[in-house]
């Protein structure tokens, strides 16, 4: 398979994730869609690493995984705090910090 196909898959997944972030309202699903976008970026990074024959892209992908894990931990912690205060689990109604 030529590497362009992998990039196509990556582009599709990234766009689907972006659409999900815009359309969905549940913060949990928004986090899932962010994961989709990060994974699409990971796929592109690994593809380019294969393209050049160096491991730097894979290292970068692993660091992205670490950052994604951190983001998930903090995001889910906030989600638990939100549900504990009986606030609505909806990104449109959680606008306390909005200007």
């Amino acid at each position: 398979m030529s590497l362009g196909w992998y990039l196509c898959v990556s582009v599709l997944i990234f766009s689907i994730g972006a659409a999900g972030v815009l359309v969905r309202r549940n913060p949990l699903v928004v986090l899932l869609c962010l994961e989709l976008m990060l994974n699409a970026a990971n796929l592109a990074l690994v593809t380019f690493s294969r393209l050049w024959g160096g491991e730097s892209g894979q290292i970068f992908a692993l660091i992205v995984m670490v950052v994604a894990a951190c983001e998930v931990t903090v995001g889910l912690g906030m989600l638990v705090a939100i549900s504990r205060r009986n606030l609505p689990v909806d990104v449109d109604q959680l606008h306390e910090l909005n200007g």
Partner: protein
Amino acid sequence: MSAVLFFIAAIAAIVGAIGVVALRNPLYAVLALVCHLISLAALFLLLRAEFVAAAQVVVYAGAVMVLYVFVVAYVGGGDEIAAGSALRILGPIFALALAIELFIAMLGSALKGISGKGAPYVPGFGTPEQIGKDFLTVYLFPFEVASLLLLVAAIGAVVLARRRRGLDEEDVDEIARLLAAPRPSYTGTIAEGVGVRKVLDLIEEAHGGAIEIVGGGAASEAVPAAPTPSSTSTSTSTATAQAPVATAIPEDPAEHEEPDEHEEDEEK
């Protein structure tokens, strides 16, 4: 063979991604993401990134998704309200535009390599050995920064999600009642901590009633003129003989809980 594997994995990944966005129930969305991540790991294997594929399955599809499932179970993934009409239409349009732009950027680039199969395969490419060697030599600093980031995230999550219960209305009333009640002025002080209390308990035992030491000027203000029912008469004179200035006050049933209530008050 690799083409067949690629198409199976790619279609599974895209279907999983669509499932994440389209499924209403958050639990099913999480399961769709697990399917997506595992097929993505297959794609990584096809790209000869063995270690990244293993980390993807173990860390992502294993640990992170378990976290998601727990939070879905905790929060309770109910069906959500439909999105506002403007974003509901504009979101997919924006995503489509983004996809077209990215296709142009990726495939229209002058990179000759993307129509080929990549660099010639060197044995050892992408193995844990090679990745580990890179991480501990060239990329040592990002490696350490990543560990620090994980630590910060763990502490942040604990701080964010810890139980931080405020006081209810009846709690406030209860605490106000307890604070207004007469109590020995040494409760909750260092004097109590170092064991003066024990001596005073002995004195109390001897006289059968609580004793209050009025140390300075401020301490005496802390005791309000409480409605004293009775039993005040128990040997004020003998108490003064042993303590500097002591007066007997009625036994307060709640005095032992007093330090805890103080703590809760400060936290609030």
